């Protein structure tokens, strides 16, 4: 299992509440802005998309790439972050 970043650990540690989308692991300033422009301004909106895709990894990664242009590592980080959050809180 690859090691997780501090951002990942911070996100997964507590309910996301109103955290901005940039709080997600793998989503920095640039990607966060792109997502926000498309309407995904909060982390829970991205969570919504993740759940609508039934937590499927491939679909979520494709979607993230489509919407924000994330590369493979960023996609993986974001997916992992959301998945773990769901496992803990959903």
């Amino acid at each position, binding site marked *: 299992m690859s090691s997780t970043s501090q951002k990942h650990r911070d996100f997964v540690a507590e309910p996301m509440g109103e955290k901005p989308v940039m709080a997600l692991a793998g989503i920095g300033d640039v990607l966060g802005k792109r997502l926000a422009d498309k309407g995904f301004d909060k982390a829970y909106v991205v969570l919504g998309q993740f759940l609508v895709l039934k937590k499927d990894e491939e679909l979520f990664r494709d979607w993230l*790439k489509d919407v924000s242009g994330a590369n*493979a590592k960023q996609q993986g980080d974001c997916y992992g972050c959301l998945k773990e959050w769901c496992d803990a809180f959903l």
Partner: protein
Amino acid sequence: MAEFLEDPSVLTKDKLKNELTANNVPLPSGEHKKEVYVQLYLKNLTILNNKKSPPADTFSSDEELPAPVVSNKSRSGRKATKKTDKPRTEEVEVTDLTDEDLKQQLAKHGVESGPIVASTRKLYEKKLQKLLDQPPAEPEAPTDVTALPKADSNQNGNTNSDQYSDKEDEEIAAAEPEPVPVVEKPVRSRGKAPVTVRTSSRRQTKVIEEIITEETPKKASESVVEDILANEISTPTGISATCRRPIRGAAGRPVKPSEYWLDESRVQHSVHTESRSYSESLSRPGSKVSTGKAPVRRGFLSLLLKLLLLVVVCGSLYYAYQNLDSDQINTLRGVLDSVIVPLQGTVDKAATYLGIGSSGAQESIGE
């Protein structure tokens, strides 16, 4: 369009006439009994009503969609021959499907899809497209005689891996388009290209394998990459963290570090037993070289020895200074001289024996 009545007699004669003319039904000239018009109405219009939903007809409107589907299937089955050529005349245009149809099509291919909403529709369309592209490619390759991909794969000598690799291709190529062109260049420069250049799909798989293995050691020099690659293939993900080994021959480091260090330690120990002042001068460059490369444990040991020697030497000098007797000093000097000469001889012998010789001595002196 208004639904036609089953029992037109409820209408007045005039209304019947109007209805008939409105629907282009020829009316008999002159005035007739209402019954006539009712019959006409029944004949022409009520039948039309039925035509909309035929109970048991050979032509059913429901089958309009699947009928061309079947014919298209057979057409596309013979049409697509090349792997590179991916015709869009598949069963159905994925973009034209309704949400439900899309869901059904995906279910046919064994994909359990979630809700097809605005945000998810595009993804599912893509997925279905992929699935539709795959099956026509697979069964055709072995059956079609004139198929080029088969010839290609025969040249490469591996049919199955091509088919399997396509899947990998699309999944990973979609996910990692960026590293592919970047890594292709170093792959070519390294001379591993001959196998990879032949077919585009095979190249991509080779490159993709190396992407996974090479993502981490991109910074390492070429001489070390091979070692790292050999290590990384064994791990499940292909990615493992390896300590960055210091590059040999760089930054003044000797080419064969381990052997050199071992010799130095032997020399160090022999010197320590013979004379103290000489050992100190030798151990300094020796330990410098050793601590630069060798494991930390041995570094500590040499450091400890060094300190010990230093203390002993200082102690002896102090003792000598205290006495300040010329006779004693002279005798001490004589003893030292008698010891130093054979010591030098042994050191030189050892150095030449081990083959480092003057170059090593020069290095140690230079540092």
